[in-house]
Each structure stands twice: as structure tokens, then as C-alpha cells.
């Protein structure tokens, strides 16, 4: 979204202009749904978080400091991640027992017939147990550091690290089951491009 438009929308949203708020929602909601769904793995929970998240966005927009293209999306994403974590915590889905986390259902369920596409890989993340998934999302996708994650989740940095390595091991195993055995092979995955 061009900066001139973003700034204009923000200004109108601050004045509680419904149509501008709707435009903002429509512009970001699909991406934010994907983001929250990646944490929550349940549709209704995700919709609820989206609701809470956007309400927070609209009420906190006055405090937002616009710093050019991308800054708005990054800010909204942070709010959504926080809301997702709060929901997980509320539902007591965040347990980080050392070593004793229940293993996910059969991994073979996540096999697909054709080559893996991006959507399949997205689903692999979703298939991780709650604890693994949360840490993996925060660290690998959102780019938080272990100290920050530990702070957020009320665990030790060591727990964060061990959850991450378990998540990676599980993902690696699932990728191998789908024919991606070595890291070198990642780049051979076909990505369709136009000419």
C-alpha cells in the first residue's frame, strides 16, 4: 500500500471513520488470519483473536507512529501475535514440559501425494504440538530472540531453545517423509513463476 494511502487511511481511522476502518480491515485481514491461524490452529479461535486484535488496532492507532511503508503491517502483526499468545495462555494450551510433550498424531497423515507446496508446509507448522509451534513461530517466522520469547511466555531461554530444536527435528522428519531429505534439496522445490 503506498505511503500516501496508508497515512490517509490511518488519519481517517483515527477519526473513527467506519469505512476507512473497514478498508484497513479488508486490506490486512487475510494476512492476519493466516498469521493467527499459524499460532492457534483452530478457526473459531482465530476469528476471535482477529476480532480482539483489530479492536486493539483501532483503539491504539492514536499511539502508532507511522514510519513509512511496511511499518503499519509490522505493527498490526505484533498486536496479532500478542493477542494469539494471550489466547493460547488463556486456554492453557501453553505447556512446556521438558522432554515430556505429547507427540503429535501420526506424521504420515501429513504426507501428500504430489510434491510439497507452500500450503503443505504451512500445514506442517500447524501440525506441531502447541508448545513447539509457538516457539517455532516466534523464533523462525517472527524473528524473536530466545530471551524475548522466554520473557513473553514466562519460561527460561533454555526451554525456548529445547522446544525450538524439537520443533525443527519434527519438521525435518516430516519433510523427509515427503522426499525432502537434506537441506541441500530445499532449493530444488519447484516454484512456479511466470516466464
Amino acid at each position, binding site marked *: 500500500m503506498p505511503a500516501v494511502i496508508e497515512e*490517509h487511511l490511518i488519519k481517517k481511522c483515527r477519526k473513527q471513520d467506519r469505512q476507512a476502518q473497514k*478498508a484497513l480491515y*479488508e486490506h490486512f*485481514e487475510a494476512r492476519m488470519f493466516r498469521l493467527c491461524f499459524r499460532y492457534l490452529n483452530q*478457526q473459531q479461535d482465530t476469528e476471535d483473536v482477529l476480532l480482539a486484535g483489530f479492536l486493539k488496532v483501532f483503539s491504539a492507532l492514536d499511539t502508532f507512529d507511522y514510519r513509512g511503508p511496511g511499518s503499519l503491517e509490522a505493527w498490526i502483526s505484533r498486536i496479532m501475535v500478542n493477542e494469539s499468545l494471550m489466547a493460547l495462555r488463556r486456554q492453557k494450551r501453553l505447556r512446556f514440559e521438558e522432554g515430556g510433550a505429547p507427540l503429535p498424531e501420526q506424521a504420515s497423515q501429513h504426507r501428500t501425494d504430489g510434491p510439497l507446496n*507452500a500450503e503443505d508446509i504451512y500445514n506442517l507448522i500447524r501440525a506441531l504440538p502447541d508448545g513447539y509451534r509457538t516457539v517455532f513461530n516466534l523464533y523462525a517466522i517472527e524473528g524473536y530472540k530466545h530471551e524475548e520469547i522466554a520473557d513473553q511466555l514466562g519460561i527460561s531461554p533454555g526451554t525456548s531453545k529445547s522446544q525450538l530444536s524439537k520443533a525443527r527435528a519434527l*519438521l525435518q522428519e516430516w*519433510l523427509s517423509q515427503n522426499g525432502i531429505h537434506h537441506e541441500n534439496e*530445499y532449493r530444488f522445490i519447484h516454484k512456479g513463476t511466470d*516466464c
Partner: protein
Amino acid sequence: MKTNIDSFIKEQIAELEGVPAGIERNRSHTWDRIQQELDQKPARRPLWGWMAAAGLALLATLSFLLVQRQEPVNLAINYSTGDSLVVFTQTQNPQPIQQEQTLRNQDQKQNEPFLTEKSLDRGKGIMPQVSQSDQSTLFRNLKGRSDQQYIQNNTVGKLGEQMHLNTKWESSNFAFQDQVTSGTTLSSNQSFSSVNSTVSVPNGQSGAYTYQWSPNTSGVILPSSGTYQVGVITGGTPAEYGDLTGGVVSMNVIGNGVKTNQSEPVGLGLTTPSTVTVDGNLVALFSNDGEKAKQKQGWEDPNAVEEYAPIYENSFLAVQQEPLSTFSIDVDRASYANMRRFLNSNQLPAPDVIRIEEMVNYFHYDYKEPKDQHPFNVITEVSTCPWQPDHRLVHIGLQGKKIQTDNLPATNLVFLIDVSGSMDSEDKLGLLKQSFTLLTEQLRKQDRVAMVVYAGAAGVVLPSTPGDQKETILNALNNLTAGGSTAGGAGIELAYKIAKDNFIPGGNNRIVLATDGDFNVGINSESGLEDLIVQKRKGGVFLSVLGFGMGNYKDSKMEILADKGNGNYAYIDGLMEAQKTLVSEFGGTMFAIAKDVKLQIEFNPAQVKGYRLIGYENRALRNEDFANDKIDAGELGEGHTVTALYEIIPAGSKEEIPGFEPLKYQSQQNWGNSSDEMLTVKLRYKKPDGEKSILLAHELVDDKQGIIQSSNNFRWSAAVASFGMVLRGSAHKGQSNCDLVLKLAQSAAGKDAEGYRAEFITLVQKAKLLMELKNVEVRDK
């Protein structure tokens, strides 16, 4: 430190958009909940907030006085229906004065035609001044005027509003609407708009004109001189199919007759801003026209008004739900030639220019000729789908019987030629004459040809003449000149009358219509014209439509005419295409060997989970129409080939078919029989003069052959279809891209005696370059 697996996964999912697969959600439902919450809790401000707000308001008033020029101009907008909001933000100081000069010249030029001496000499009549409140139809008897009328409207309108002047002439023979002209109100205090229109009234006819205000253009006064960045934000849902711009086509900045500056803020969703420079008390206008915006998507000439019907692509259907697929054959090839014209002028065609079946059918395939009593042979083949390797691709071909030229039935042709002013150029009337000269050379002694022209009025320029009197025919052809407006309806009536008067029983009776399609229909409306053609085709007269020219080409109208008139439609983009259509494939274009040819495919659910018919979108028939002989369908010409492709999701695939919910009582095991047959092709046709249809059936078993074992026919058709999907930006293109198309095409070109396949390969390479250039442009922006 991040390991490879982290960045690999991050990279993969970064490109994902939209709702995750397998999830169905209603996004507006969540918005409704948000809105409810927002409405319940009006924004509350603490006390300091109110104080700050008051302070800000004071500041704002001050800054308004000081820097009001920097406030963007806002317009009311409905975000959800595809409206657009245009935001002007001043970014720079006025441009140097040099530019002013150039623009002033341009503007003077615009006014010129109205004032020329030449027009004054030729029977000028100035209409009375009218005001906006006079919305009723004015009638002015123009009986007996033999020359042009000039109309001027001085009128008061709101700033930025546009006025359209529809001029309509009525006569005892026919009535038609003449051109629509528009003017724009430029200034708010002394609103004045001048619309001038030149219309010619045919001799001895009377007319009336109406005018109307269409505020489809909005305007704003920009507060000051300077350079403005223009941003366009479009609403959520496009107002119209194909319109992703919210209807914003162009940005015109018009002063009080001083300067014009144009920019094109066109793009997807939220568009890239562009810059306009204005000077002084000027008006910025943006047109909000979905139709034009649609065409802009194709990177066409902004002034062009070519018309294409939108195509909603077929999607995958579940065999459990839709075991039958029914459609009419389509022997037209116009879309291919039109696409070629775009690429040869270094433009990518707009998506709706591309009708994939017409591209596939442009090529002649090497099918076996029929040996039995039927006038054609059905050929089927199945192999791997090249752009979606876990799918299969089914190729169905029809080969029409070939007839020796001497054995062709006698022909009664009526050339119906558009000689209106819009045809007056070398690539239209010039090419048309050359094309018909080639066609005339094919005629024999027993054939007859007549020639009807239409412009302001329709007339016979050559009565029905035997085909061996070539000199008489060619003389009449060479004497054609273009001029005047277009009365297509009267021309078609007259042509059908002459065809009927000279009807050859058992022969080939056919009208050959040559036009750019920009005719205004005498029979009051387009649907009136269609009705006329439907009524006339019962008399056994076929219709071939040849399209010429560009700029105001009306593709949609011409295809409908040929479709309704038992005929075919070709676009002639050059002499080579004229040669192909009218000489090498003369029989195919001019002689029907079967009419109302319909195909119905029945899929076996034991073998096929889902299918998609590629192309033929506007040829779909209802399943029950297959056996209904009253329902019209396509004609097959002598020696013609017709090809259709189905992309198949094999039974047992885990792929989900959108919109299909598995049925509770009809599990896959109980469905179908255990036969190996993948599908049955059923086909119905009528003899050219027959009324009762004949049924043919043909089964196909998937022998699991790979793409390497497939025939040249198979791979060539797949290459063309794949290219069509790339150009359309189809959602179903899978791994299709120009490289895949080239690989397939180069492996399947075969003998290619006439060089059409080599030409295709060149066009793909050209498209590839144009797409790369487009990507570079997008990146640089």
C-alpha cells in the same frame, strides 16, 4: 543462528496469500462483529485528550490558513462497492513555465474542428442552447437536409460533470443511434460546457436528438499550483468483473482552457500513486468508468475503445456431482489473430481477448479422415497434463470430411461490406478489398455473388452475378469508398433479402459480413439484431463474419452475430490471414458439412474425480439441451478440425474440488462401474439442410501414456492452451509459463508446411520478452 530449515520454511510460507487451504470463512462476518463492538464503544478520550483535541483544532485552523494547500482533497467513497478514492497530496512547487506553453497548444488544437470554415460551408445548423434542466427529448425535424448538421450545446452543469449527447435519427426505413459525444464542465463559478458533434443525416430522412447528463466523472478543485502525488484507493469488491481499478482509468487535470496533464493510476487494489502537475485554479478529473478500466488492464492504447466480452473461466467440477459436460463446437479462430495483432504491436493482450478454444482451433491437426457414413471422425487421446503433472489431459478432436473443390455445391454469396467512416483506413477497407479479391478468385461459374454496402444507408452495389464474371465483381469491389455513419441493421436485412431472392436449393447460401463491428443497429437494439438473424437463419442462409481493423474493434458483437447466424467468425489482421481463411481454408470457411454440432462427455467416476473443460466458456450448453434439436449450436466446415481439451483430476486423488461437498449416500465405491473407460464422448450433429440430429458415441480408456509417448497433435494443443492460460493469467495455469509452452511447442511442431506453428513459437518468445519487460517496469515502480 538460524538454520536452513527455518529460513526455508519462512520463505515458503511468505508467499502464501488468502485463506488457508481447506478453510472456509466469511470475512465480512468478523467485520460485522468488529463493527458491532466499535458501535457499542464510542471512542472515549480522557480529559487531557479533549484538551489536546481542542488545542489541535486551534492548530488545525491556523495551519489551514497557513498551509491549507497541503491538505489532501477527499471525496466521498463507498469502499465496498468498488468506488475509488483519489487523494491528492502536494509534493513539489510549480513546474517551470516552459511546460505551460506546450500544453496550451494542445488545448487549442482540441477546439479546432468546431470552427473550421469547411464545416460551415456544408449546411451547418446550430441547435438552440439548452440548460441542464431541459432533460426531455428535443425533437427537431431535419427532413430534407441532405448534409451534415452541427450541434452545439452551451450548458450549465456541476463542476466536473460530463455531458453526453446522444443523437438519434429516425426514418421510415430504420432508426439508429448516432455517435455519443461528451463535454465536461470545467469551472465552478461560470459553468460552461461546450459539446460539439457532427452528424450526417441521410438524404430525405428526419431525425431527433436527445441529450443527457451522466455524472460518471468526478472532479475536484485543487487548492493551489504545484505537483501533486495522486493515490487511488479502490473499494473491496470490484464493481464489475475484470475491473480491478475501482473504475479509475485516467486522471485529467484541466484548467480553464489552459492545460492538460494526464496520468494513469491504474493497478490492482490499492494503486500506485502517480504525479500530476497543475497550475492555479484548476480542476482535476478522474473518470470512473468500469468498462474502460477493464480495457486498461490489457495495457492497450488509452484512447482505444475496443470491446471484449468478459470470460469467466470454467473451473473444476466433481464427477459425482456433474457427471456430464455439454458444449457446442466452436470453429472460430478470431481470438488467435487478434492476439497476434496485439503481440506484433508489442502489447500484451487484455485477458478477455483470449478465448483459448479459438487459439487451439486456429491450428490444423493431423487427424484421420472419416471413412464411414458420418461427415467427420472423432479422435481422442489422453496423457499427462504438462502444467499439472498429477492431472491427466484429455484431447478430443473432430475431423471434417474433405471435399474436392469441383464437388463443392454451388454457392450463393452476398458480400455485406461496412463502408462507414470508421472503415476508412488501409488496414480496414484496404485489406478488405484485397481479401475479397482473393475470395473472388476462388469462385466458379456456377457460383453467384452480390455485394451490399452499408454506411449512412444500405445499398446494392453489385446485383447477384455469376462467379466467372470476375471483372464485374472486382470493379464493384474497387469502387468502394468509406464515409458516413453506419446502418448495419438495414444492411443485414437487405443482404438476407438478396440471398433469399437468389437462393440455390441444396447449395451453399451465405452472407459474408465484413466490418469492424462498430455499427449502430437499425433494428433499435443489439438484441433486435440478434432476433433478426435468428429468424433469418431458419431460411437456410449461413453467415460468415470477417473482422477488420483495430482501435474501435467490437469483438463481442461480432462473435454473437456469427454465433446466432449459423456461421463462423474470423479476424483478418493481415493479408496472410486473409489467404489462410479465404483461400487455403476456403471450404472450411464457406461450406458447412454439419450444423448444430454438440458434444456431451460422460465421465466415469471410477476413473475420474473431477474435470475442467479448457475454454469454450461461451459455448456451454445445458445437459438437457444436448438431445433437444431446437437448440442451436456450432457448424463444422469442409475439412475443418475442432479440438477440445479436458483437464482431469484422476479418481483417488486427494485434491479437493472447490465447491464440492462429498455426498453422504454416494460413496465412491458404489459409483460407476468397474469399467476401464475414462469417459464416453457423445456427439450430435445435423446435416446442413437437416432438421433431425444424428448421434455418435466414442469411448476412451486411459492407457496411462506419458507425455513423451503422446502425439504431436496432443502436445501442440496443450502448448497452445497453456499459452492461452499464461496470457489470461488463469487461476488454473499450474506450472504453465512461456518456457513450458516453448518446450512443448518445439517438440510438436511437426511438418508445419505453412509456417503457422513456427509463427506461434515466435509469438510465444515475443510474449515472454514483453512479460519480462513488464516485470522490470513493475519492479522499478
